[in-house]
């Protein structure tokens, strides 16, 4: 067992891990941050995406020990300081960008990383960037729409059921 120290959602944390302990395991089991989800074992589904030093990373394919000294941000650290939903989170709720919620943490973390790099992405750019995130519920329509909306783009033409005001 080796001691690992990192900053998670602004708080310094440390713990004893095995060499094989994944970052996702350390977050979920070591720190009790169960918002990061495990949906597969081949690094395909993206439910486990977190930010490591600002970069979106699949925590199921990252060893905890690789993150020594790193700044980690998880879904639990995405809300505004007053606890209200951040812009991207609020857009997912406003546009029904989630159903069962299981892929959602990874979708939000991936989307926020995209918006940090590309503040007004095109539909094609969003769909391409979500290549590593699988959702079985939404058919992606409202996820893409939520990301467009979070970037300040007009989405009123994309379906009629999203909000009372849009009808």
């Amino acid at each position, binding site marked *: 067992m080796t001691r690992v120290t990192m900053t998670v959602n602004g708080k310094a944390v440390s713990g004893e891990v095995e060499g094989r302990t994944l970052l996702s395991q350390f977050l979920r089991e070591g720190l009790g941050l169960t918002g990061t989800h495990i949906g597969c074992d081949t690094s395909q589904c993206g439910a486990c995406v977190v930010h490591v030093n600002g970069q979106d990373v699949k925590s199921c394919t990252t060893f905890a020990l690789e993150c020594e000294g790193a700044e980690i941000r998880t879904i639990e650290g995405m809300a505004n300081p007053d606890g209200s939903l951040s812009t991207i989170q609020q857009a997912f709720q406003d546009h029904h960008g989630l159903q*069962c919620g299981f892929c959602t943490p990874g979708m939000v973390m991936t989307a926020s990383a995209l918006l940090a790099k590309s503040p007004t992405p095109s539909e094609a750019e969003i769909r391409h960037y979500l290549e590593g995130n699988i959702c*079985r519920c939404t058919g992606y329509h409202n996820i893409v729409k939520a990301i467009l909306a979070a970037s300040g783009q007009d989405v009123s033409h*994309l379906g009629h059921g999203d909000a009372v005001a849009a009808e």
Partner: protein
Amino acid sequence: MPKDHGIGASSKRREDVRFLTGRGRYTDDINLQGQAHACFVRSQVAHGRLNGVNTDAAAGMPGVIRVFTAADFEGVGGLPCGWQVTDRHGAPMQEPGHPVLATGKVRHVGDPIALVVAETYDQARDAAEAVVVDIEELEPVLDMKAALADGAPKVHDDLTSNLCYDWGFVEENREAVNKAFETAHHVTTLDLVNQRLVPNAMEPRVAIGDYNFATDDSTLYTTSQNPHVIRLLMGAFVLGIPEHKLRVVAPDVGGGFGSKIFHYAEEAAVTFAAKQLRRPVKWTCTRSESFVTDAQGRDHVTKIELALDAEGHFQAIRTETYANMGAYLSTFAPSIPTWLHGTLMAGNYKTPLIYVNVKAVFTNTVPVDAYRGAGRPEATFQLERVIDKAAREIGMDPVELRRKNFITEFPYATPVAVEYDTGDYNATLDKLLEIADVAGFEARLAESKARGKLRGLGINCYIEACGIAPSHLVGQLGARAGLYESATVRVNATGGLVVMTGSHSHGQGHETSFAQVVADMIGIPENMIEIVHGDTANTPMGMGTYGSRSLAVGGSAMVKATNKIIAKARKIAAHLMEASPEDIELKDGRFTVAGTDKSVAWGDVTLAAYVPHNYPLDEIEPGLEETAFYDPNNFTYPAGAYACEVEVDPETGKVTVERFAAADDFGNIVNPMIVDGQVHGGIAQGIGQALLETTTYDEYGQLLSGSYMDYAMPRASDVPFYAVDHSCQTPCTHNPLGVKGCGEAGAIGSPPAVVNAVVDALQRAGMTHITHIDMPLTPSRVWAAMQG
């Protein structure tokens, strides 16, 4: 103006805040004090004689608490099948045993053989690899027709063959149907495969068993769509635990699509192990394990024939289907290719004579059961494909051929034993042509052509039977369960309500939409209502969520219970205002004496119910809590029309879905935003089936498509934005909300639209020899078809 609350409003989902902040509570997020971890040893071969299991090495490994084998489960029952189908000669289906851990033989890759329990999951997994299994490999049976050949190896040695049943429906029509084909003006025949799919809810299954030796109570936390059903099946048939000593909790569940209806061996194994060890035992499925243990879907091989007269009227339909059951009968498996498939073969059309034959077959593959749509997508696909083919053969526009045969008068009794209560198929088709901008297709075709691409348009209709199901009817058909739903409405003294429902929400947003219904009925804000589900300890006996039944059946139970509440509250209000209950009106959360300005607020009445100082105690009891069960007297029949436009790359055969439109009639709508989302998700699953997904076993029965690297799930770049509409509404006539259900439509209506579109594109490009390509329409399949 759209409503801003209550029925018909796109209320934002209250569930979302916890899911968006990482505060959901899924089963794997639960960790109990003193919990041990389980890992299963599974068969790595498809078929073999299990000669021995040596656990000595594993038992001595670090952290190992105990290794269970089949011998430990000798006093335990097998997994039950919930539906008995009777074959066309009147005999019951062949029903093999289904032990919790394999005994005597292993019958598919993934069949559980032993259960290792250790202090940590990693230790359990390490030790599982040290369990030595002695298996004498046997020749597997994989192909259904080969499985029925004389001398084929048997999956179950104690059965007479690999045939589960040979079902005919309606058997009495068989001769008349055959005769109609002999004299038909035109017959169109289509052979097709509705390929096996893996449901792939994003949350893998998890089960945690817990046992309290002081009270002799067992608890199972599990990823289930129907915790009460699991309690009944596991308690009564497998472990022999009476229901009052067994609690099943299904907390936040990350999608189901059918795969979490069924009672699985792992649930029984961890509950049993927890009692033996007097410690909680947790099992979390890996995705690789899901691929070889979650019940899979579809897997039909079908020949369909359609007989038409000279004017294009449908005269008769005859089908022969081989339906794969896999190695064991999963909980509802026998009902899917029969009662959820044969009864839908009329579709939206007046066809006087229909005969459906289904041969269900055991093979050395993962069991097959309900997957989103369950039988109805298989019926819709073959019917809508054969109609398209027939239209081409007789030279009629496929839309016109459908219209010509539409059922237009309701109620309509089909020749396959169901009665459609309402519908307007021309209305949804007209709406579809509008939202799909079919009029603009020619221009888009020209534009595609200019870029060197082929373009095609596919249109089809669908109908489904939802709101599952009238208990008296399904009982006659072989169901070993009732299919009612329940609700308890508990009003608190200060006026807030808790609604405890037997339905389960795993993405459908019931906590929001159910609250909208009750809020509307009483006239109070939605946030005064809490919806509780997923725990047998605090909800009434219910049958859970599948078959697009939650609002139609569960919602109806809730309406009944709320009406009982209102009736009692009206009596209390009448007493408080010294009026007659008949004169009391409830509006916007106030009780008023009709024609007067006398009124009391909802909260005054609820307080009086719990502080009954001034109260008609001689007439009614204190308190305000009511339970209702609702058993539907018919199915509901959502229907609609779907359109898909594809581009095909003539060089590679790659298909791109350019446009997709869906016009559905779901009857009344509670939350349009949620309904849109349900349809979107279904469409993506349908596009996935049509273009991407398939389940492939090699000749040894190894699952080749056993991970997300090999099984092509639809991703964001595989699908377009969808145009969906549900403004055509013919309310259901027999449930109080007039709702029909919307959960499965997208997955039912979309596969034929995609395939029709691809065939259309190839036909328009002159490849008239291509009348069908089996799903998934991968580039290689389309390219091969184009080569002739």
